[in-house]
């Protein structure tokens, strides 16, 4: 079949566009932005579709599969019994780790560890657990932020470690949260934080009882019915999540503030701002790791406003998924 002339012209035009896109990605992006369109044909302020699915890993105590666009995160929590530390005898602990296996992206190679993975692990731990020290996050541009933006930088307080205590001084829960990135298409921290929140929402604390020596052990599902020993925590099976922190990453380019970037956009534009807010509309943290563009306070306010919208949307999705789960 002989292709028509117009089809031939089209393919050569398409090839030219593809070549331009590869060779001069920044100029290509500029031209698209002038027409208010992004690389994946989204409009400038459009967030990607996000979904949350619970129970993806049946062998874990709590798990969630989260997708933001193509970015896919699988989070799973496994609980183990440990002896609490001497300084905090009635507190359990949570260990958060973020993995980027080679399946997730062509730029991840086995044997060459990705920088992003431990950085995101630490950011997640800081956001979900620890009290954040303001000076860690505010960089040299800090004096731009001081006046207009009202912020309370605090521990996000999603989990009360005291709820993870079983027997004060003797036994407490150690929750291992492992987040595995299955597909890395931008906005990794946002997706990871959402998957962590979702996994904790789904978490079912295992039933425990005491054995003869007074040691606490986990009762497995089959034994629970047959065992004569009283389960110590039969009523208390779910964690009480207070304020759920959720985030939005925006990239800054010239005068544009572009939320929820894909991997391609992140590779072209260096400057990004990540804002973490919690469900009670308070700012938890702000992260701007350098980059060419300096952010004036107005830009930061806009990022915070975009985050506020995004957090509302994500909370709605999360609540819908939780109520579906409870129906089952």
């Amino acid at each position: 079949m002989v292709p028509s002339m117009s089809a031939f012209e089209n393919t050569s035009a398409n090839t030219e566009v593809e070549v331009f896109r590869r060779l001069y990605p920044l100029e290509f992006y500029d031209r698209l932005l002038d027409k208010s369109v992004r690389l994946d044909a989204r409009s400038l302020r459009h967030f990607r579709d996000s979904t949350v699915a619970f129970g993806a890993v049946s062998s874990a105590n709590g798990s969630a599969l989260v997708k933001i666009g193509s970015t896919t995160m699988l989070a799973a929590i496994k609980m183990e019994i440990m002896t609490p530390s001497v300084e905090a005898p009635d507190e359990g602990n949570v260990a958060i780790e973020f993995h980027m296996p080679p399946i997730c992206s062509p730029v991840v190679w086995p044997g060459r560890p990705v920088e992003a993975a431990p950085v995101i692990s630490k950011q997640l731990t800081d956001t979900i657990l620890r009290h954040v020290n303001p000076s860690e996050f505010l960089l040299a541009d800090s004096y731009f932020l001081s006046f207009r933006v009202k912020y309370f930088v605090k521990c996000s307080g999603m989990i009360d470690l005291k709820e993870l205590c079983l027997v004060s001084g003797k036994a407490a829960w150690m929750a291992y949260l492992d987040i595995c990135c299955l597909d890395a298409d931008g906005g990794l921290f946002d997706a990871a934080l959402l998957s962590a929140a979702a996994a904790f929402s789904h978490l079912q604390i295992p039933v425990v009882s005491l054995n003869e020596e007074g040691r606490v052990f986990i009762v497995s599902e089959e034994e629970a019915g047959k065992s004569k020993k009283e389960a110590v925590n039969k009523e208390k099976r779910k964690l009480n999540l207070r304020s759920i922190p959720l985030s939005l990453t925006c990239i800054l380019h010239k005068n544009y503030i572009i939320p929820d970037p894909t991997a391609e956009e992140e590779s072209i534009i260096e400057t990004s701002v990540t804002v973490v807010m919690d469900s009670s509309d308070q700012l938890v943290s702000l992260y701007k790791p350098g980059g060419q563009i300096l952010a004036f306070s107005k830009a930061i306010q806009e990022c915070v406003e975009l985050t506020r919208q995004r957090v509302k949307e994500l909370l709605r999705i999360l609540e819908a998924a939780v109520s579906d789960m409870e129906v089952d």
Partner: protein
Amino acid sequence: MEFVSPEGLRLDGRRPLEMRQLRAEIGSISKADGSAVFEMGNTKVIAAVYGPREVENKSQQISDKALVRCEYTMANFSTGDRVRKPKGDRRSTEISMVIRQTMESCILLEKFPRSQIDIFVQVLQADGGTRSACINAATLALADAGIPMRDLVTSCSAGYLNSTPLLDLNYVEDSAGGPDVTVGLLPKMDKVTLLQTDVALPEILQMDSKLPIDIFENVMQLAIEGCKAVANYIREASKGVEFDQIFLTYIIPGSQHFKDFRK
């Protein structure tokens, strides 16, 4: 311990010659050239293929064919007890090598000289037969990536407990100590490309005079039949443009009944 009840049911209610439920999903990872999720009962693995692409380490480049690299990792949450070292331990390195050699035998490497084909497999849930699930997932991922192959490679395991040959062992049956055989088969050519066996403890076999070689051949043949059943399922799953999720349960013909659920 009784692995096969007097009525002929296994611990999870299957018959001895019955496979676990298979499920495949192709194209799950947008960033990969080819990807697939494969489930055999509760064992769930995800495979991604990147390539053919430029060789990372030029010194390893082969001038007349492609270099295949494979990495097998287990997610921390995949097993009952949390896995401390997901890769780099001996078992993972061994399985990586086994999968690589199995896939190398069927890919037409001569078509891509001086390039590299990466196969990454991650176990999301482990309940026995992870090796087989990984090979099946890798086959589907390679097909999704459009890499030309001589034939599909399908894999299945079989064992022998309570004097009964059992098909497709789960974790409990696998750790029981009986002999188990994992077979990798090129179904159209009817050639065995992978054959791995674990020797049984004599107490489990409960025999001293009879040579286990008869049992071994029996079990190996059963595993080969299992591979053919997986191949049928994969062919069904890859038919048509849309790779939908299809649920099928196969029992080797010759046993009492045949169940077939399609969704």
